[in-house]
């Protein structure tokens, strides 16, 4: 006899209500970052010097700015999931863990917003 309700069995999400979604999204963002990471490194290497003009020219093209936004968002999400696991594993005290998780997640989201806005400002020609 099972103590799990039929609904629980159907959704398969378990007691954490999230199922394998944390694990799964970590893998999906990992695959995306393989491609985005290789693109970013190749782009940096072929920039021909990271002068301000070169960087702005490069990010002004639609494909570059789109991929750069994707890189920033995906990297922030992947880092958030990974750092969450690290903190949950090593910070035993529940209060400290909660504070650490909030600080790390807020910092990553703020950084991601700053990064996306920076790319958009360059892409739309707002940047000085």
């Amino acid at each position, binding site marked *: 006899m099972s103590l799990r309700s039929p609904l629980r069995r159907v959704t398969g999400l378990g007691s954490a209500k999230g199922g394998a979604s944390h694990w799964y999204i970590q893998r999906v963002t990992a695959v995306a970052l393989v491609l985005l990471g290789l693109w970013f490194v190749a782009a940096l290497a072929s920039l021909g010097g990271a002068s301000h*003009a*070169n960087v702005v020219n490069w990010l002004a093209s639609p494909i570059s700015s789109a991929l750069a936004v994707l890189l920033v968002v995906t990297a922030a999400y992947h880092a958030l999931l*990974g750092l969450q696991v*690290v903190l949950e594993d090593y910070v035993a005290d529940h209060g400290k863990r909660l504070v650490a998780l909030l600080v790390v997640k807020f910092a990553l989201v703020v950084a991601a917003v700053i*990064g996306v806005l920076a*790319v958009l400002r*360059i892409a739309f020609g707002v940047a000085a």
Partner: protein
Amino acid sequence: MAQRARPLSPFLHYRWQYTNTLSILHRITGVLLSCGFFVLVYWLAAAAAGAARYQSAVGMLGSPPVQLILFGTAFSFCYHLLNGVRHLFFDLGHGFETRTARKSGWAVAVGALALGLVLWLVLRAGLGGAL
């Protein structure tokens, strides 16, 4: 209720070997890359803030201690990328045989060092004008 001495998790007397070394390195490089993410955002924000602000920001990136950090980031990037792909194969159920896992582990370690060095040199040369 009196607490009896319970058996402890056996992590303290596991033999240190390549499996856990590669595993903890994946975590460490992941944390380092998370720090690198903030440097990336700083760089993008500096580029958006105009040529003068960008120059002063990039000038700081060229100093020797920051160069050491950039090398660490380049190595971390290569290691986390290669070992990450290795783990994706593990997730699909491949490469668990001892010989295969040891081989792929060595490939990741040597490949990350070599590619990390190449990446650092290429970036140094490519970014040379500004750094």
